[in-house]
């Protein structure tokens, strides 16, 4: 048996109190200085370790330690309940914020709805006003036909007139955008009424158009 294996056996013999030492190990220890030294050192180590193991290590003032532990547990319970309370108050705060947000959204809807209403109302009144002042018969079927029929300048005039009319009011940019968007879908009988009547060019074009129709 090699020294390494013998040393393992010595460990088992000394530290594990394993009495199953065989003759081979004893003979080896007697004849090998290194293993003999290892065995003796192991016995001394075992003795010191056993002594350390048998020490009492008494906890001094155990009552104080017990009281401290119980006090800390009590405080821990109080902290836990206050944490729960603060959690509840946080929940309440979140609910309040949610309600405020809901109210704000309703308010926004009302404001924008009113804004929309004003724009539509304005468009309708404009349409009405234009239709009463115009003698132009309805014959175009859509807005694209108007643009195609009239010269480019007239179309530009039409848009600038709308913008001019709205620019005097608050939020004109927003309203103009809505109005123009609405115009693109508007029935032609209404659209043509936006044509700038003051323009000579427009009058000439309108007259020639009427003449053309009469001829047909």
């Amino acid at each position: 048996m090699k020294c390494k294996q013998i040393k393992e056996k010595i460990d088992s013999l000394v530290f594990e109190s394993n009495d199953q030492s065989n003759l081979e190990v004893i003979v080896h220890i007697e004849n090998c200085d290194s293993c003999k030294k290892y065995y003796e050192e192991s016995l001394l180590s075992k003795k010191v370790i056993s002594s350390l193991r048998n020490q009492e290590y008494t906890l001094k003032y155990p009552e104080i330690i017990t009281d401290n532990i119980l006090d800390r547990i009590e405080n821990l319970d109080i902290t836990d309940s206050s944490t729960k309370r603060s959690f509840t108050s946080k929940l309440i705060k979140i609910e309040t914020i949610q309600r405020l947000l809901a109210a704000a959204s309703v308010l926004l809807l009302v404001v924008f709805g009113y804004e929309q209403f004003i724009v539509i109302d304005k468009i309708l009144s404009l349409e009405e006003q234009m239709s009463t002042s115009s003698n132009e018969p309805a014959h175009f079927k859509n807005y694209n036909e108007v643009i195609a029929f009239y010269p480019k300048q007239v179309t530009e005039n039409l848009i600038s007139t709308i913008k001019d009319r709205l620019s005097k009011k608050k939020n004109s940019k927003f309203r103009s955008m809505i109005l123009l968007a609405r115009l693109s879908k508007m029935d032609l009988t209404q659209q043509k009424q936006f044509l700038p009547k003051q323009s000579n060019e427009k009058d000439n074009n309108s007259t020639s158009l009427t003449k053309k129709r009469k001829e047909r």
Partner: protein
Amino acid sequence: MQLDIEKSILQIQKGDSTAFKTLVEEYQQYAFKLAFRIVCNEDDAMDVVQESFIKIWKKINTYKPEIKFTTWMYKIISNTAIDKLRSIKRNNHINIDDVSLLCDRMSNEHPDVQVDNIETGQLIRTISESLPEKQKLVFILKDLQGMDSNEVENILNMNETSVKSNLYHARKGIREKLNKLLSYERRFS
């Protein structure tokens, strides 16, 4: 009267602090012994005992009866003590003369002779401080606490081979350290 641990645990799980007090009184000396062997200082060991029992109170609902209560408790104490060891910086100097003298006394006198806690702590610290954490824990649980291998495996979440290997290397290191101390003492005696 012996404590009915299962009954006590059920009561503690319901929040009974009186039952917990009884449990603390029953096990705090065991807890202190283990904590002291790991941190090698009375004050730190007392801190570890308090922290460990507070953890036990907090985690009592996670305790499973399939595991022995003491195994579960020792696991908490070991972890708390290791955390404590990592957090403290050791500046106090150990007198090698005192430690080697104590070592010599222990190797010659009867193993049951009682020595002061401070001296014992210094000796354990001297012989085990150079060991890696796992080896140190295996040595303390197996050779100083006298636990069986199965319990050590459960406490440290190690397999049998790992425990054996760590123990072998720990004993080797400790034997070398003790020999140095003993030969140091013999030089002057």
